[in-house]
């Protein structure tokens, strides 16, 4: 076998192996999207009931709560960025990181210090590589978040928000919204202080449009609000984590699908090249033989 042909054969083998891997990853992601979407759907009854309860308390009582009071001269803003733990998901993490950089820039231009909190290894490595400071980070659950994970994150953030000194005045969230299998958008939302009139149910209708009965609050409206609001923040973060996980799988599936397609095309064109290299080799051999035979024939005719 000629050297040229051997090189092509080796490349075809290696691309075939890569294609097998990307195909497997594509199928794994496809099955996980369904699971992740189911998790999002399963968490909506809780989120909706909680939203209703929060709105009911807020409309029926004028209770002030630290989590809803706006600081008129906010100095420090926190940004919570949700990214993936693993790569090979196309632009998924990059888009979220870009959105967070844009947001940080805007907050800085408003004269606020920006404190960054990150979920997911990809965001952490981006920030550490560029020497940017991270206030705190959580990793290891980006593709399958549980409510407990959201609770840990929320606890730290609420603590930072309610701290007397050195705390933050507002909290923004960058997550990826799952629109469809093909579309996922990085979105930003202000989580704290809560704006109760903008609270929405999962189907985008404002919760305030409902008329609430006159509830008896136990132990008191303030007591209920005290317990409700942190749960509400947790559930918002949980929902963002689940949406982002679904988006991550969808982005990975798409990236792996195009990688598989590209590998297929590469194999096709390499096979063509290998075939023509083989044919060239054969042609050359034939012409060598023919040339050699002719030379022999000429030489023997000359001696006669």
């Amino acid at each position, binding site marked *: 076998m000629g050297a040229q042909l051997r090189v092509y054969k080796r490349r075809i083998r290696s691309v075939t192996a890569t294609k097998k891997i990307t195909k497997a990853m594509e199928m794994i992601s496809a099955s996980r999207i369904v699971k992740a979407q189911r998790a999002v759907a399963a968490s909506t009854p809780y989120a909706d009931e*909680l939203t209703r309860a929060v709105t009911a308390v807020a409309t029926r009582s004028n209770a002030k709560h630290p989590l809803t009071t706006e600081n008129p001269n906010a100095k420090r803003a926190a940004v919570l960025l949700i990214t993936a733990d693993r790569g090979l998901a196309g632009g998924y993490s990059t888009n979220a990181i870009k959105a967070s950089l844009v947001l940080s820039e805007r907050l800085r231009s408003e004269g606020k210090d920006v404190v960054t909190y990150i979920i997911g290894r990809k965001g952490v490595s981006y920030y550490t590589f560029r020497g940017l400071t991270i206030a705190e980070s959580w990793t290891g659950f980006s593709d399958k978040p549980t*409510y407990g994970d959201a609770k840990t994150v929320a606890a730290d953030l609420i603590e930072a928000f309610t701290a007397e000194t050195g705390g933050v005045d507002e909290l923004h969230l960058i997550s990826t919204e799952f629109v469809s299998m093909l579309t996922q958008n990085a979105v930003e939302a202000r989580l704290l202080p809560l704006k109760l009139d903008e609270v929405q149910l999962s189907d985008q209708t404002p919760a305030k449009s409902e008329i609430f009965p006159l509830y008896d609050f136990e132990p008191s409206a303030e007591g209920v609000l005290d317990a409700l609001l942190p749960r509400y923040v947790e559930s918002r973060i949980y929902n963002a984590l689940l949406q982002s996980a679904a988006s991550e799988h969808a982005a990975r599936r798409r990236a792996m699908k195009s990688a598989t397609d590209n590998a297929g095309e590469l194999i096709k064109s390499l096979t063509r090249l290998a075939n023509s290299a083989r044919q060239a080799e054969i042609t050359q051999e034939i012409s060598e033989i023919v040339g050699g035979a002719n030379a022999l024939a000429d030489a023997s005719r000359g001696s006669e």
Partner: protein
Amino acid sequence: MAELHVELVAADRKVWSGAATIVVARTASGDTGIMPGHTPVLSVLETGPVTIRTVDGGTVIAAVHGGFISFADNKLSLLAEIAELADEIDVARAERALEKAKSDLDEHAERRAEVRLFAARGLKAHA
């Protein structure tokens, strides 16, 4: 017979829903029983068992860990961060958790494990 509609919802799933005649849950101010036609109420749940008497005479017991109860228009919503139905609870695991909590002197974990065991055993007593 009058009945109320109950939804028991955990953070990550809907645990139970259906019609009931009375629901007893532990709130911040003690055990509260809610029957059809109760005044609208919204209160904080403690870690404790929730007992639901269904319309067909059965009993559903669940262990809930923190959450809320809200009742209005004959609809009762029980929201819990974690909620487990009695027949889903692994008694052996709960017992191990109780042992561990006792040795670690973790009061919250101990209480959670106790409630779980209570709920699981309560169901057996009814059966």
